[in-house]
């Protein structure tokens, strides 16, 4: 069966894509940001996931105001990097996993999550920046991707509780897929940032770090944070962190943290990144001893 072996969360600031694409990732401004992902890039090489379920939000690229799906799952064969107004990023096309994606879509709908199904779309920085941060600059992305787009732009976005429950349902869906697949789930966006109005530039490291703490271990209190708290404490765009809860919900009852990174600023935003392993005694670690695997790299 397919299994979710890890969860990864990361900010997806577009400027990180620019830095990566134009070789600025080791300058004074960006080096401390990218250095926090060195561990993860080595770890991903050892983990070799077959598929990543990548939870992100579209930023007026594939979706405009005509259609606003709350939860949309990409079931297509492949996705091109979107032209966001300055030409598409020169990164590989993203290969989908239609069999798994359709299986998840069907399972979720039967599990009472009424998903929107997307067969064709371009994917913007929300999806391609995390791929660059975790995999660097390969000729082709080393795994297939199931995009899961969440509306966090037009209010109301889904509640944190609903996001967490969707994650739980995704886990059930993955575990009922027959093929042996090493599946990771990534939650992206955040952490604190506000891109609009006189209050722009708001950053709340204390709150962000409490949120990171809350992803680790057994507590599920994060699912009950109301929207207004994200807005007041972490800025209007901090609401993107509800997408991290889909990732966390998919990891089961307990998690342990393998790696963690926090840095301010990147453009207008606080960068947060965490790598989690499900820790529920069910032997979900398909790759064996990851420390040994890393050492062998």
């Amino acid at each position, binding site marked *: 069966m397919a299994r979710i072996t890890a969860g990864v969360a990361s900010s997806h600031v577009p400027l990180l894509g620019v830095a990566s694409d134009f070789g600025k990732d080791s300058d004074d401004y960006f080096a401390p940001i990218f250095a926090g992902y060195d561990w993860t890039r080595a770890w991903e090489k050892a983990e070799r996931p077959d598929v990543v379920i990548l939870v992100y939000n579209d930023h007026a690229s594939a979706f405009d105001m005509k259609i606003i799906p709350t939860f949309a799952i990409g079931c297509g064969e492949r996705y091109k990097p979107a032209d966001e107004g300055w030409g598409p990023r020169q990164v590989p096309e993203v290969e989908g996993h239609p069999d798994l994606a359709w299986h998840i879509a069907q399972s979720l709908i039967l599990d009472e999550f009424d998903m929107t199904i997307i067969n064709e779309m371009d994917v913007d920085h929300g999806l391609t920046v995390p791929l660059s941060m975790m995999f660097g600059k390969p000729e082709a992305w080393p795994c297939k991707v199931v995009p899961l787009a969440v509306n966090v732009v037009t*209010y109301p976005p889904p509640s944190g509780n609903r996001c967490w429950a969707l994650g739980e349902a995704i886990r059930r869906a993955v575990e009922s897929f027959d093929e042996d697949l090493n599946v990771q789930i990534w939650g992206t966006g955040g952490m604190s940032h506000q891109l609009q109005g006189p209050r722009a530039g708001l950053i709340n490291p204390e709150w962000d770090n409490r949120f990171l703490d809350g992803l680790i271990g057994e507590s599920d209190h994060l699912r*009950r944070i109301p929207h207004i708290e994200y*807005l007041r404490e972490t800025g209007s765009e901090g609401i993107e962190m509800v997408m991290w809860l889909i990732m966390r919900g998919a990891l089961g009852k307990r998690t342990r943290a393998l790696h963690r990174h926090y840095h301010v600023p990147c*453009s207008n935003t606080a960068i947060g990144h965490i790598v989690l392993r499900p820790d529920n005694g069910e032997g979900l670690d398909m790759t064996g001893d990851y420390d040994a695997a890393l050492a062998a790299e």
Partner: protein
Amino acid sequence: MTGPDGQSVGDIHEYLAAFDDIPGTRVFTAKRARQGYHMNQFAMSLMKAENRERFKQDERAYLDEWPLSDEQKDALLRRDYNRCLDLGGNVYFLAKLFSTDGFSFAQAVSTMTDMNFEDYTKMMIAGGRSPEGQRSIKANQQDKEGSR
């Protein structure tokens, strides 16, 4: 929907009203999304290079092709982004106009604050804007009254 106590189903009117209590922030509610629909779709049209060219040649004429209010057109022409937000603009859509103008996101965002870009950049490098005194208009007023 999860209420402020984290458990009960919240009241939609209270849910929406709370957004107006955040200082210096325009939450992109359904009301704003309706009001700004054509403004945001106009901005979206700038994703295409030929539209960007036409817009740059004659901004007013290009805006006149869209069912926008005079206020909306005026705010767009003046690049008064706070006003655009008031009139239903959303920052991810307005960002198409930022890039048409050759502005970085942070540069354009800084124009909505009371700082110039240089000072805004310094603030971000120094750790960003503190949430202290930025959480609630009502709480700020109460603090003021309490200290009198």
